[in-house]
Every structure is written in structure tokens, then in C-alpha cells.
């Protein structure tokens, strides 16, 4: 579903991603861990075209973006990729001038050109799916962080993505609100959604992930199934990371 081949990204002379190769198969739940500044968010942003890549290539659901292709071609490809992948942001990024329902149906109306009543039907169904059927008329400012993030997930799902990208979806949340977002993500995983998740939620990673990737300094350090990753890490860097995490 997602493959990156030698993907690299630098800002001026600062190398954020150094030749990254990852593979996310259909229905995989891949969790990317790593200290801050490791490049994990940048990787996700590259995959959704929010950052232009500097080298290598990647493929999402059959659409290829190659750093050697012209800028125009790359932009065209990323726009097509965005239609097939949903993105959930750390800061939710809900549209503040639209209600919960308005946020969910915006893409259906503007991008998919669905008639309003049809979009509303889909939107209500999705709000119900994330447990917010009774909040459709609420503006984001009146919703808690957890509710906002669930609306944001519904907004992404509305576009019927083949894969969902989560960029630290619970990092901006108060601790007591993390659970409601994670449980929505769990349900999505159970329904067979392909997911690439940048997160610090170890319990979620351990229980839900099919594969864990540890990144540090723009490199992939280790890549393994959760059990092996947590019980028997091969790399010293991984062991150090896990020790740091456990001290918290």
C-alpha cells in the first residue's frame, strides 16, 4: 500500500530523512516511534505531499512520486495520493468556521462534488461512527480536544481513503482524553483500515500494531513486530529508547 525507496528530505543542509525504506502492506498497522526530531513526522508529511521530497521515491496505492520527476508531475501525483490517503494532525486542524458536520462534509462537497443531502447523510454516519452523532451542530471551539480529534478522523474517513496517516494524534490531548481517540483508532484497525501512525502511545503500539518502526536522526533504527520489538530489541539504540520511555 505504501512503499518508500531511498526517500530523503533535507531542509537547506539539514538532513531530516536519510534514505528511508519502509513498506506498509494493506491492512497493516504500522506505528512509527522515535525521539522528537527523529524525522518521523516529516516522513508522514512527505507521504501526504505536505513536504516535497529531496531524493528517492515513494508509492501510495499505486501512485508513484519520484524526486527526479518534474515538480509539476510530483504535484499532480501528490494530489492524487491525497485523495486516497487520510491525514490526522496533532493539532486537529479542524475548520473553526464550520460545525462538526460541516467539517466532515466539506471535502465531500468541494472535492467529491456530492450533492449536499447525500454528503450530510454520509457525514452523520461518520460522526456516529466516532461517537459524536449528538454534536453535529457544535463548532470546534465548543468541543473538547478528544472530540475535535474524533471529528478530524471522521473528516478524513469521509473521503474513503485507502490508507490513514496519523501524525501524533494524541500528543496535544489532555491525558484523560487520549483513550477516546485511541479507541476510535482501534476500531478502525479492527475494520481492516491500513494505518501508518506516528505516536508515543506505547500501549497502543504494543496491542494494535502489526509492525513497529523506530526512527532516530532521520534513519530507521529497527523494524519489527511489536512483541519482538518490545521484548527482544536487536539494536542498542532501541534498548536505550525503551529504557528512556519506561523511566517516564
Amino acid at each position, binding site marked *: 500500500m505504501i512503499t518508500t525507496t531511498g526517500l530523503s528530505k533535507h531542509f537547506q543542509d539539514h538532513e531530516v530523512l536519510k534514505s528511508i525504506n519502509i513498506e506498509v502492506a494493506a491492512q497493516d498497522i504500522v506505528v512509527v516511534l522515535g525521539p522528537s526530531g527523529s524525522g518521523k513526522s516529516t516522513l508522514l508529511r512527505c507521504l501526504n505531499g505536505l513536504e516535497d521530497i529531496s531524493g528517492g521515491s515513494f508509492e501510495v496505492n499505486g501512485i508513484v512520486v519520484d524526486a527526479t520527476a518534474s515538480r509539476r508531475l510530483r504535484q499532480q501525483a501528490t494530489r492524487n495520493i491525497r485523495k486516497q*490517503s487520510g491525514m490526522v494532525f496533532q493539532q486537529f486542524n479542524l475548520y473553526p468556521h464550520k460545525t462538526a458536520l460541516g467539517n466532515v462534509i466539506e*471535502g465531500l462537497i468541494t472535492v467529491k462534488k456530492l450533492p449536499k443531502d447525500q454528503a450530510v447523510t454520509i457525514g452523520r454516519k461518520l460522526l456516529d461512527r466516532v461517537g459524536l452523532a449528538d454534536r453535529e451542530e457544535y463548532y470546534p471551539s465548543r468541543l473538547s480536544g478528544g472530540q475535535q480529534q474524533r471529528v478530524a478522523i471522521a473528516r*478524513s474517513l469521509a473521503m474513503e481513503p485507502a490508507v490513514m496517516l496519523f501524525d501524533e494524534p494524541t500528543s496535544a490531548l489532555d491525558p484523560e482524553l487520549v483513550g477516546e481517540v485511541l479507541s476510535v483508532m482501534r476500531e478502525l484497525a479492527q475494520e481492516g483500515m491500513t494505518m501508518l501512525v506516528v505516536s508515543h502511545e506505547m500501549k497502543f503500539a504494543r496491542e494494535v500494531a502489526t509492525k513497529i518502526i523506530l526512527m532516530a536522526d532521520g534513519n530507521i533504527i529497527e523494524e519489527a513486530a511489536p512483541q519482538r520489538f518490545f521484548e527482544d530489541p536487536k539494536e542498542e539504540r532501541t534498548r536505550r529508547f525503551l529504557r528512556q520511555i519506561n523511566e517516564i
Partner: protein
Amino acid sequence: MQLVFDNLPFLLKGAGFTLLLTLVSMFFGLIIGLVVAIARLKGNLPIRWIARFYVSIIRGTPLLVQIVIIYYGLVDYGITLGSLTAAYIALSVNAGAYLSETFRGAILSVPKGQLEAAYSTGMTPWQAMRRIVLPQAMRIAIPPMGNTFIGMLKETSLVSVITVSELLRQAQLLIAQYYQYMPFYLGIGVMYWIMSTGLAFILERFERRLAKAY
């Protein structure tokens, strides 16, 4: 004061023109301002440069000079405009420059995450601008826009020099007839004040409606 009341219909006709000038030039000013703001933010280098030059020229010269150039100056190049048309053009072009700066600032103040969210659902840059950024920018732009509106209402008095029969011009005609200054000037002062206050009131209501979501 009796003189003012006796000639009220004549003055009200001037006030009507003042309002008309304000509304029409604001309408076109808004369009010009929006186009120029987007040109400055999204255009290629020559377009950005032209837009900057326009804003610089208009903001750097007095409105009175702009008015006389458009009405009297253009005649030298074979362009003869009616006084009302010249007034509309001068005021619109002037308001557009100021409003473009207001819009540019407002558009820039919409958080980057909003664009990213819009893009990630597959919107084109134009769709994201129209559906997501501009509605939020409008709300931010309203208070400074109000300043420009009210400033414009008062600056319409400048077109009296090209004989547009707006409020100040009407008062001057009455003064010439009666040789009485104070009553007429005071009278139109009050009328300007009432119109400004009314305009401010409408803008405030509009602002509150847009703020409903926040």
C-alpha cells in the same frame, strides 16, 4: 439653524450621493483589494511586483491628487470622464490599495494547519483558499475593514473638488447662496457623524455574526 432645516432635502440629496459613493467604491475596492492581496501572495514575480507598486503608489500619494489626476489629468490623454465616474474610479482604486493590505495580513494570519488540512482532503489551492482560508480571513479583516469603510465615507468629501454633488458640495452651494457658514458646516458634520455611526453599527453586527463559531 432654521436655514439647515429649510434646505434639508437639498442636503439629504448630497448625503445620498455620499452614501452611494461610499458603497460603490467600497464594493469595487473590496474586489480590487482581494485580487491584489491574492496576487501579492500567490502571483509570480512580475505580478507580485506590479501589485506592490500599485499599493505603494496609492498609499504614497494623497487621495486628492489621485482624484484630480483621474478627472483633470487624464483629459490630456483624451480620456474624459464624467465627474461621478471619475469619483467612483478614484475612490475604488484608493480603497482597493488599503483593503489589499488588510486582506493580505488577514490571509497570512490563518494558521498553516488549515491549508494542510484542506490539502490533505484533496482540495486544490484555489478550493482551499475559497472554502477554508478566505472565510476565516474575512472575520479577521472586518475590524480594520471597518476603519477603511468609515474613512472612505468621510473622504468622499474630497470629490467635491470635481463638482460631484455630494454632501460637502451641496453645503458649499448653499453657503454661496446664503453667505452663512456655520449652520451648514455643522449640519453636514452631524450628518457625516450619523452615517459613520450607522455604518459602524452594521459592521459590528456583521462581525458578531461571523464570530458565532468562536
